[in-house]
């Protein structure tokens, strides 16, 4: 099975490299990162603010159906070269994970294909490992929630 997205995380280091090839012209891939309406669609989060320029700042927020904020992240854009590169910081608010430095490199492969190279640098090795485990932990929680749901349904009188 072909793995489109590659993740390289060497043990004992505090960074991760994520690489992905897209069947998209590099201009469109870049657009998906700078247009707030498009970011909202694929990230599945609300974009409170996204100033796609040098010294611009950004803020994303996700709420559950009841309106409680479940995810809030923000940062500052340090460099933005259209169609080529974005350097920004990323911080998940109210978490102990610190600030990440993210370098996105957009590369044209052919007229209709492109590559994204995402280099994420964490403050410490421990923070990187914790953040990388989030989907792992999340997956377990999700499975538990589903189990709870099923069990609750079973408990209800028929």
């Amino acid at each position: 099975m072909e793995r489109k997205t590659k993740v390289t995380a060497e043990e004992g280091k505090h960074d991760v490299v994520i690489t992905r090839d897209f069947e998209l012209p590099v201009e469109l891939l870049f657009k998906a990162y700078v247009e707030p309406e498009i970011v909202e669609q694929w990230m599945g989060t609300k974009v409170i603010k996204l100033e796609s320029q040098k010294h611009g700042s950004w803020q994303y927020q996700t709420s559950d159906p009841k309106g409680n904020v479940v995810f809030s992240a923000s940062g500052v854009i340090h460099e933005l070269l259209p169609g080529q590169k974005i350097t920004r910081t990323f911080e998940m608010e109210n978490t102990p994970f610190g600030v990440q430095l993210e370098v996105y490199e957009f590369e044209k492969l052919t007229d209709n294909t492109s590559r994204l190279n995402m280099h994420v640098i964490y403050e410490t090795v421990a923070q990187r490992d914790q953040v990388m485990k989030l989907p792992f932990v999340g997956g377990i929680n999700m499975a538990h929630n589903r189990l709870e749901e099923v069990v609750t349904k079973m408990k209800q009188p028929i």
Partner: protein
Amino acid sequence: MNLRRDVFQAIADPTRRAILVLVASQSMTAGAIAANFDTARPTVSKHLAILTECELLRQEQNGREIHYHINVQKMKEVDDFIEPFRKMWDERFDKLEEIMKAYKGKPNA
């Protein structure tokens, strides 16, 4: 969670990773493994002990010899640690690609 961390410490070392690659193709004695490295024999023995301790390798008595086997299940566990993270990004990027393909189809895009 402690054991898990030990596993990652175990594979952090390049010699230990090389040992795992070596043993992955066939089970071997400590002597046969050591013959592949310039490192002193006791050092290789120490690496083998660490790999065995965190269950990446298993010892098996074969007559008078002890053979080292790779523990596939444990190796899978190491891979599983990154897999949900990779999958999360893969799904996000799939969505991005899908949205932008539709976007490309729009007039004035």
